[in-house]
């Protein structure tokens, strides 16, 4: 996954794609075109397979005919060997796309009597190349010449001439060589082929074999330098260039439901971030698989695809168990929305698990991945290795925008907030499940230990598995104790009784106050009536007095007029 500037591409050497998954990525396009490449490694590491794929894929995918010069196997053996990988070598030979020339050297039949050269080999190879216009040549394994011909000096000088001649012919050649004691190849072929050397390795560690591929050198080209895990399966060889990924994946603000509405509420109301990695850790039986399945179920219900990697249970068992809590996973399996991959970790090494996972994700293109549980991988690697592998899984999934849930089993008696394989720092969200023991029962408790980039609840929740799914219930906490299960229910009942009593007291008090208020109101009414009466009486008295005054004045004036006073 290297990026190359266009300017560099112009000046860089031409590449010949192998069509082998991953190899073209780490070689930045393929083997050097028109030059020989050495493939070396111990017996059984896949040299011949790589060489065969190079020829077969060249002929069938890139329309580049090829010549396979086999020093070890006959054409029929070769065709039979690769038929199991789905390559129809015989048909390619019939259609003049591939020539397989079996070269047999029997030391016992050969006597040396003076000067000679290997012109015969050149002529055979030349005839085969010209016969079909070959662009690719494989010599597997040219080292047989050293075994078959006594005069090493002649073989060496002729090999040197052969590689120059191949370059002149302009064919892209793959030469295989057996690994030597202290050298890359037994007879030092690397001295002659200096353009590109690929080393294959098949290591057994703890009884588990892992294949690896490394580019020892590649002149004039950028290339990945790590050891890359490789896998040989029904589709041939694949190389996993996952460790070449960087921390520059796109991030999404889109949210996906966890499948449990209360959990979504805890996660800022919307659920997980799409493309994030979620760790669910907990002790045995704490409900890790159930929470993971709830997510799988919800993804599939929305029409998304989910890949379920299980290292503990068979698909049938997961489907049956999850049906008991109301998740009909079988329906999703039938619709090809949910795919299970149940595998014992000890079947092959960590690297192979990685390659298989990578392949499945590339083929199935899921929206979500569940790995349940990752702790079982300790059977095939130490914590450091598992962490390395999971880092690559997470990097890969994040690049693909796949939401991933990893479950991790916490052994009893260990610190809860410590994930078994030390991967918590890689995760974006961490759900911790634990069992709370109280009053002769155990209950499940869930809390969010972390959730990057969102406002999340710090509250503990009890979670209950019901026939209709998972329900999260508030736990009762008080006096340093968490109440769950029956204790929670009895606490709830107590609380309800208390509440009722408080309510009744309040009602009584309200009634008393009401009465008092009403009596006061009555008194107030009486006083107001009296006040009104007094006011009315006062007003009446005043008006009578005025009338009397007016009448007096009138009489006085009449009297004065009658006496004719001045």
């Amino acid at each position, binding site marked *: 996954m290297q990026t190359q500037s266009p300017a560099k591409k112009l000046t860089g050497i031409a590449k010949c794609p192998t069509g082998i998954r991953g190899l073209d990525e780490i070689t930045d396009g393929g083997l050097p075109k028109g030059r020989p490449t050495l493939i070396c490694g111990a017996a059984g590491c896949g040299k011949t397979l790589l060489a065969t794929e190079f020829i077969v894929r060249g002929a069938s995918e890139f329309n580049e005919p090829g010549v396979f010069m086999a020093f070890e196997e006959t054409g029929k053996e070769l065709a039979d060997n690769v038929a199991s990988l789905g390559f129809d070598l015989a048909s390619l030979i019939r259609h003049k796309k591939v020539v397989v*020339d079996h*070269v*047999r*050297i*029997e030391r016992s*039949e*050969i*006597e*040396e*009597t*003076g*000067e*000679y*050269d*290997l*012109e*015969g*080999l050149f*002529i*055979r190879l*030349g*005839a085969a190349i010209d016969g079909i216009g070959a662009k690719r040549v494989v010599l597997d394994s040219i080292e047989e*010449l050293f075994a*078959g*011909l006594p005069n090493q000096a002649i073989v060496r000088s002729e090999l040197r001439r052969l590689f120059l001649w191949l370059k002149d012919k302009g064919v892209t050649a793959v030469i295989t060589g057996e690994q030597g004691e202290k050298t890359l190849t037994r007879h030092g072929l690397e001295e002659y082929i200096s353009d590109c050397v690929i080393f294959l390795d098949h290591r057994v560690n703890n009884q588990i074999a892992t294949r690896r591929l490394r580019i020892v050198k590649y002149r004039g080209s950028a290339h990945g330098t790590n050891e890359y895990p490789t896998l040989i399966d029904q589709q041939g060889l694949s190389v996993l260039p996952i460790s070449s990924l960087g921390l520059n994946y796109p991030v999404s603000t889109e949210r996906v439901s966890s499948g449990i509405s209360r959990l979504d509420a805890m996660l800022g109301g919307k659920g997980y971030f799409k493309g994030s990695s979620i760790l669910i850790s907990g002790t045995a039986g704490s409900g890790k698989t159930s929470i993971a399945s709830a997510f799988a179920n919800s993804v599939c219900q929305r029409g998304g695809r989910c890949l379920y990697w299980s290292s503990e249970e068979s698909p049938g068992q997961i489907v049956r168990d999850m049906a008991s809590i109301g998740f009909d996973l079988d329906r999703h399996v039938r619709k090809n929305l949910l795919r299970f991959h149940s595998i014992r970790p000890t079947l092959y090494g960590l690297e192979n698990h990685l390659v298989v996972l990578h392949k499945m994700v590339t083929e199935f293109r899921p929206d979500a991945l569940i790995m349940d549980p990752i702790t079982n991988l300790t059977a095939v690697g130490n914590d450091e290795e598992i962490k390395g592998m999971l880092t690559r899984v997470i990097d890969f999934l994040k690049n693909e925008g796949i939401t991933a849930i990893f479950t991790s089993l916490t052994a009893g008696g260990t610190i809860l907030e410590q994930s078994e394989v030390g991967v918590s720092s890689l995760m974006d969200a961490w759900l911790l499940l634990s069992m709370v023991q109280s009053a002769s029962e155990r209950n499940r408790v869930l809390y969010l230990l972390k959730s990057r980039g969102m406002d999340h609840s710090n509250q503990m929740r009890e979670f209950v598995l019901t026939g209709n799914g998972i329900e999260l219930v508030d736990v009762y906490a008080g006096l340093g104790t968490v109440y769950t299960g029956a204790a929670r229910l009895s606490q709830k009942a107590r609380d309800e009784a208390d509440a009722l009593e408080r309510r009744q007291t309040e009602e009584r008090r309200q009634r008393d106050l009401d009465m008092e208020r009403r009596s006061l109101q009555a008194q107030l009414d009486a006083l107001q009536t009296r006040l009104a009466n007094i006011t009315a009486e006062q007003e009446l008295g005043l008006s009578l007095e005025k009338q009397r005054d007016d009448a007096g004045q009138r009489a006085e004036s009449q009297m004065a007029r009658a006496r004719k006073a001045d």
Partner: protein
Amino acid sequence: MSKRKAQQPENDRWQLRLYVAGQTPKSIAAMSNLKRLCETHLAGRYEIEVIDLLTNPKLAAGDQILAIPTLVRTLPAPVKKIIGDLSDEVRTLVGLDVRPAFAPDASWNPKVIAL
């Protein structure tokens, strides 16, 4: 360009095939060495076929030829291959399984194996 030098065979008949690639010094040396050797030790009992791979490159695969020159003894069986310009006469004779005083007895009845 095949050269045949056949004499009437007796019950032991030597069939030799020499592969060369053009008229290189090594090829020419091999041809003259072979002729001399056959005349000396197998006079009248041999047959030589010279195949030039430059004109017939497809023939190289049949006898599994890599080295040039290669002398193949197709008869008597078993097939023997001698590579080089045949300058080492003793080794050539050993390689061809030719004893200088070759005298087959009555039980010598070689089978012809088709190649």
